[in-house]
């Protein structure tokens, strides 16, 4: 996928795209106060994900 994305970005810069690429120019969201380093909240997300995985398996 990365190779494809890079190819499409190159076509865009070169003005050589034959048709619009669906992943071009979509709203690109961020979050308030987020500056690019998720180290402080990733462990919380991780614990939540592990909990949800365990729950799903038990529900099966």
């Amino acid at each position, binding site marked *: *996928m*990365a*190779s*494809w*994305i*890079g*190819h*499409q*970005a*190159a*076509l*865009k*810069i*070169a003005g*050589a795209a034959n048709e619009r*690429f*669906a*992943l*071009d*120019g*979509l*709203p*690109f*969201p*961020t*979050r308030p106060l*987020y*500056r*690019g*380093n*998720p*180290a402080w909240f*990733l*462990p919380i*997300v*991780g*614990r939540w*994900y*592990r909990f*949800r*995985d365990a729950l*799903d*398996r038990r*529900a*099966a």
Partner: protein
Amino acid sequence: MGASTGFAANAPSGKLGCMTDGLLAPGFRAQPYWWEAAEPASRAPHALPARVSVAVVGGGYAGLSAALTLARLGHQALVLDAERIGWGASSRNGGMVSGGLKVARGPLERTLGPARAAEVARACGASFPFIEELIAREEIDCDYRRSGRFVGAWAAGHYAKLEQNVARIAEISGQPARMVPEAAQRAFLGSDHYRGGMFAEGTGGLHPAKYARGLAAAAERAGATLASPVRVAGAAPEGAGFRLHTSAGEVRADAVLLATNGYSHGGPSPWLARRLLPVGSYIIATEELDPGLVARLFPGGRMISDTKRVLNYFRPSPDGRRVLWGGRASFGPITAEAAAPRLHAMMVDVFPELAPARLTHAWTGNVAFTFDYLPHIGVEGGRTTRPAARAAASRWRAGSGIRRP
């Protein structure tokens, strides 16, 4: 996927805890197994050109592929990477070519509406024929095989969700995809760990570091210039273009492409960094095993991943002698040595036969998530009337990334 800023390599630590006693094979290395065959090459430093048409920041798959295309279209492309070309996730991921599988499994309709969702899914699915054609056209020697992917359902509810998406995955990839009930999963995986799963044929496996090396060589053959290690501190608009400040001096460019993905934090674009969540992924490689055992665990040599939120992805090595096992061993930064016993335990959960298998390699690298789980290209800050575009490319997870990556 990208290369390079703000990532600290895990230096081998001198002392290993008792948890790892007996687990690591003699000669264990805390670096990618892939580097044994294709370690990213150092490039002799040389003076940067004063002016180029496009400066590409980040020498991973995205940046190299962009440089190749730009060079083929007659543009002078310069790729700059703060580490060696291909040093990041491009030479660390699991080597799984997913063909848009992950995006197609995501909640597209809900977030984009049905019409836009179909467009996006098609755009992602087109990545699969693209990479197959690219490998063939550029004759990239990277052990590529259209192996197919088995996605194991961690829970019965996950199986039902896969079933809802299987027709769309087949349609998007243009290749068959089908459900595999639990009773039949031994045809795809030598384990009863999952509640059945899905098999998608429009997916493959390759040697990621050989692919990165081959893509870099193809870009150079086409006329692109690759420079590393060169760190880009900033790219300021100037006239109709940009002036880049780098550790090797200044460069002027008509356009700048940022392809730094999981290594964007601390790079030239705080705007891009704010939109990407770098997350470490971890992989281990076993010592050489009995090829008969590897063939029993991976019938048909498929790529395997599962539906857990804390994902596992695993595969045989291209030579069929080892098992490579990747996962999110930790959500905080830990060393590859610390991750190794955790991944080994996850592997033994699925393949009890591998309990005695020792590890020769463990490594880590960054993937990046976006907040909408989609890959993006676009112009920084949104629309612009400037003729000189500053485009930002990023992708959703390293898919093959290092969850491939």
